[in-house]
């Protein structure tokens, strides 16, 4: 297990390195930030000073080397726009995105799992068919449209919930989060539903398919022949067998919503990382873009590692060293 984790961490370092190369030079190719940051009527001297201040006067490979040197020490450079360290900017925004991501994953589990179970256990019933049909909607409706509709109905028409921003933050056990205030929850509900919808649909179909696959198997019939209650058969024998794909999707989802909550965060004006990255790309704020992607990649790699470990806990037939191949 330790050897496995170490190997995975080395792989992660390699991925991060390649990622930094691609992003650094990629953003360099998009455009020249100088055109954006330096006032149009600045003279040559001011211009040169501004360029030197940002470190853009050196050749690109030299810029990259100094970036890597800084990055190894945890310094990803300063934002061209805000003048603050890029990492600081991202860490400021991270809690808001994490709140949103965890809320979405939570909704996916508490809504998607029971509905999927129901649809799988009673595929021919009215409820089962309705759930399945509903999941198709969840797949096919575009996120931005659903977001706008949610705002239109629940914020504008009914006026039940706020349409944008994050609620007030309270501190609990040293963690500052809007989850600890009622108004924070009210702000969170709509974006979380918006973000979770597609994943709920995915979860429903996944669980339904899993249940349908496991139910006809001999070991379920044997469990019934042992005289187990239906609740125990579904809750233990079926559930434990369909957990592998569920954990996979939850892991992927968590990574995806942390990294790509961009659309939802834009619609609901949620002050998370997604909104920061969009703004930064538009302004060619390279240190922030690079740092953001590095942080995101690190998070996704970490989640995948956790998923692999959970795999081996869930299914005794999987040993961690086999997952390498």
């Amino acid at each position, binding site marked *: 297990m330790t050897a496995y984790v170490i190997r995975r961490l080395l792989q992660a370092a390699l991925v991060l390195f390649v990622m930094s190369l691609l992003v650094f030079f990629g953003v360099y190719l998009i455009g020249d930030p100088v055109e954006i940051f330096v006032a149009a009527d600045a003279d040559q001297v001011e211009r040169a000073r501004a360029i030197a201040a940002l470190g853009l006067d050196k050749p690109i490979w030299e810029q990259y080397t100094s970036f890597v040197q800084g990055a190894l020490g945890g310094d990803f450079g300063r934002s061209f726009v805000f003048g603050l360290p890029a990492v600081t900017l991202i860490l400021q925004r991270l809690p808001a995105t994490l709140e949103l991501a965890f809320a979405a994953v939570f909704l996916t589990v508490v809504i998607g799992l029971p509905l999927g179970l129901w649809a799988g256990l009673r595929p021919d019933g009215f409820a089962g068919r309705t759930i399945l049909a509903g999941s198709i909607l969840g797949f096919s409706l575009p996120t931005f449209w659903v977001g706008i509709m949610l705002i239109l109905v629940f914020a504008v028409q009914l006026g039940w919930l706020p349409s944008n921003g994050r609620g007030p933050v309270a501190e609990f056990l040293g963690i500052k989060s809007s989850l600890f205030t009622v108004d924070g929850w009210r702000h969170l509900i709509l974006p979380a539903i918006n973000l979770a919808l597609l994943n709920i649909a995915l979860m429903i179909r996944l669980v339904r398919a899993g249940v349908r696959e496991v139910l*006809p*198997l*001999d*070991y379920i*019939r*044997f*469990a*019934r*022949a*042992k*005289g*187990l*209650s*239906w609740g*125990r058969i579904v809750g*233990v*024998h079926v559930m*434990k*067998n369909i957990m592998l794909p569920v954990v996979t999707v939850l892991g992927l989802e968590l990574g995806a919503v942390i990294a790509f909550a961009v659309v939802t965060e834009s619609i609901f004006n949620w002050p998370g990382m997604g909104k920061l990255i969009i703004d930064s790309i538009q302004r060619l704020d390279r240190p922030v873009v690079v740092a953001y992607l590095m942080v995101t990649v690190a998070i996704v790699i970490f989640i995948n590692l956790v998923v692999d470990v959970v795999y081996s806990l*869930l*299914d*005794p*037939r999987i040993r961690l060293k086999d997952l390498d191949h």
Partner: protein
Amino acid sequence: MTLVVEDLQTQFPTRAGLIRAVDGVSLQVGPGEILGLVGESGSGKSITGFSILGLIDPPGRIAGGRVLFQGRDLVGLPEEELRRLRGARIAMVFQDPMMTLNPVLRIDTQMIEAVLAHEDAGREAARARARDALARVGIPSPDERLLAYPHQFSGGMRQRVAIAIALLHKPQLIIADEPTTALDVTIQGQILFEMRKLARESGTALIWISHDLAVVSGLADRIAVMYAGRIVESGPARAVLAAPLHPYTRGLLDSLPRGAGRGQRLVAIPGMAPSLGRLPPGCAFAPRCSRATAACEAMPALAEAGADRAVRCIHPLGDAA
């Protein structure tokens, strides 16, 4: 009698029409008795076993007949009452040991839950019961093996575990659905021996479902031969094997390799087992039977034929036909 099945009908509606997987099966088995239920794949013998336990999944259903277990009809019993019987009074061992244990649960989990499903014993008492049951079926170092997962066992060991689970509550009836088919011949012999000993010693009634007459011949007290959902012949094992009355039983016996000498062709029953959706109107075996005549187009009844024997044939063997 421990179990009396009367005119059991189990049907499955399909797009091609109604499949009568079990069509009027009657059988009985008493304490300590071993009944061999023999037939080819698709003859309805496994479905008969599942029907007795009420384990027929919709859209399949028991359409008629009675399953009297210790005098009480199980057909139409509420699910909860069936559940209390299953595993406790009537146990079942399945065909494929690789598939009967849940792959992601430890053996102890699967055994302890079986104990606790019927008794309010504590977990520790249940664990002790599970360990004893494993020891009884000849699994070495049962304490250690309880902590293992099914994939760490061989097929034979897994079937022993399944049998140990079936024995946990000392049931009055065990239905064994080809439990040795997937096993090595040596293991098969051991398990046959143990099951027989068990039935004799504890007075458990045993229904042994098999396609293999050779296995059943060494084990069963009585034999019932099934073909296309019906019983075509039944009687004491010795008598049926020595002088079969139904041409199908004769065919099964002839196709066993023991009779043929070296270099001799094995006798096979011509044709194939019929599809249950397209049965001929009369005797289902007639198209494959050398003795069939026009009279076989009407369904023959299961008629008594001598001491404790019955046959469903218009031209039974040993007849001067």
